[in-house]
């Protein structure tokens, strides 16, 4: 992946974003928006929600860039984690109110006792991602389907058990087995 050939470029762009460069954010958008949007589309049903997820993610990148410790981590990985979190927020809010126009506040500064902590650094490369994907496709179907429900649909163990009729304990152990297999792929 051409993008992965320049992880240092992402780090440099993020540093510029942290210094307040909107242009650098634009370049990060050009490099990563398709990945962010792709995951958002995979997870949320409505186009408008997927677009909102993209906006939420980049707003959070802008906000948190000064705090991001990028020396040993993947900017793309961080962005993907943000995308999943924001998409889950939207999924869950949407489930509570199926028909409404949604706005989910991406900056939860709502008087919580603890402020949101600094962004977690993730080390993952495009190569890693390819290996995870291959391992995912090689999983036994019953593991893959449950993991898909948990990861891409944001369902909890209990929700998955309810939805599929599989016993709760079985849901937990199958998902754990799947995750362990995928973890091996990254080792």
């Amino acid at each position, binding site marked *: 992946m051409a993008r992965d050939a320049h992880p240092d470029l992402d780090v440099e762009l993020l540093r510029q974003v942290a210094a307040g460069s909107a242009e650098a954010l*634009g370049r990060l*958008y050009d490099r990563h928006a398709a990945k962010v949007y792709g995951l958002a589309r995979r997870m949320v049903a409505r186009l408008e929600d997927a*677009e909102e997820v993209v906006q939420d993610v980049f707003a959070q990148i*802008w906000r948190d860039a000064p705090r991001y410790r990028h020396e040993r981590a993947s900017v793309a990985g961080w962005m993907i*984690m943000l995308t999943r979190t924001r998409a889950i927020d939207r999924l869950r*809010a949407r489930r509570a109110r199926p028909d409404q*126009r949604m706005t989910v506040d*991406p900056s939860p500064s709502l008087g919580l006792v603890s402020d949101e902590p600094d962004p977690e650094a993730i080390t993952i490369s495009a190569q890693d991602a390819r290996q995870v994907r291959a391992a995912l496709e090689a999983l036994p179907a019953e593991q893959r389907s449950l993991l898909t429900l948990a990861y891409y649909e944001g369902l909890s*163990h209990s929700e998955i058990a309810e939805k599929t009729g599989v016993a709760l304990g079985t849901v937990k152990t199958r998902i754990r087995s799947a995750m362990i297999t*995928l973890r091996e792929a990254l080792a």
Partner: protein
Amino acid sequence: MSAAHDEYALLLSGYALDALDDRERRRLEDHLRTCDQCQAELEEFRRVNAGLGMAVDDVAPPAELRAKTLARATAVEQRLAEPRTFISPRSSGRRAADRRRDDSSGRQPRALVWFAAAASLAAVISAAYAWSLRDQLRTAQSTVADASQRALTLARELESLRTESAVLTRTVRVLIAPDLLRVDLKGQPTAPNAIGRAFLSASNGVFFNAHDLPALPADKAYQLWVIAGGKPVSVGMISVDAGGALTLAGSLEPALSTVTAVAVTAEPAGGSQAPTMPIVLIGQLPK
């Protein structure tokens, strides 16, 4: 490791996926504060998460999303670079481990545990907050709609006020004229109770008002005349003002010196070239 610990280990992958129920999640978070091994395993699962996210095909977003996204993003305030230190009453067991980890890897202390807690709590509160915002927006929108309607009504009122104001201005001009002549008009048999008053000024025109004139059907109106040189000359149609009085402010065409009387007749709504009998009100100028 103990059986109890295995139980926590079982929860880790679910935790990474944010698939635990609240009770399980809280228990695991309590445990994570003091367990390096689980922290390490969790980190590995989080990498799997990232991998799963990146395993999805790219989809090019719509072209117009770029500008919207960047505009909204850069409107947000950036956080300060210095991280705030969060002192957790239960993290004392971790601090030594954190310091060791910091020294070796140069990474800052992780606050995994309450990041997840804060993030999920924040998500719930965000949703609730978003709903309160949505309701406020709805209220604001209907207020705007009302305001627009009122603005329209006010515009119309302003228009009619302007017209009235013009009439009043003319009226004042007449009434302050130095050569003002006042004529009292008496109701004739068709309007015995009617009373009218006209003020004439050579320079500033005519101001007339009357009351107790009988109401006319919609297709008729009262017209004011001056009799000048023996001939009736129209001043204008008399209208009902906002207060319900019949008034007219108009210009005086003939020379004031030639006017001998002021009269009112009932005419078709658009007015007539010559008065239609009978006369309703009439007054003679003083000789």
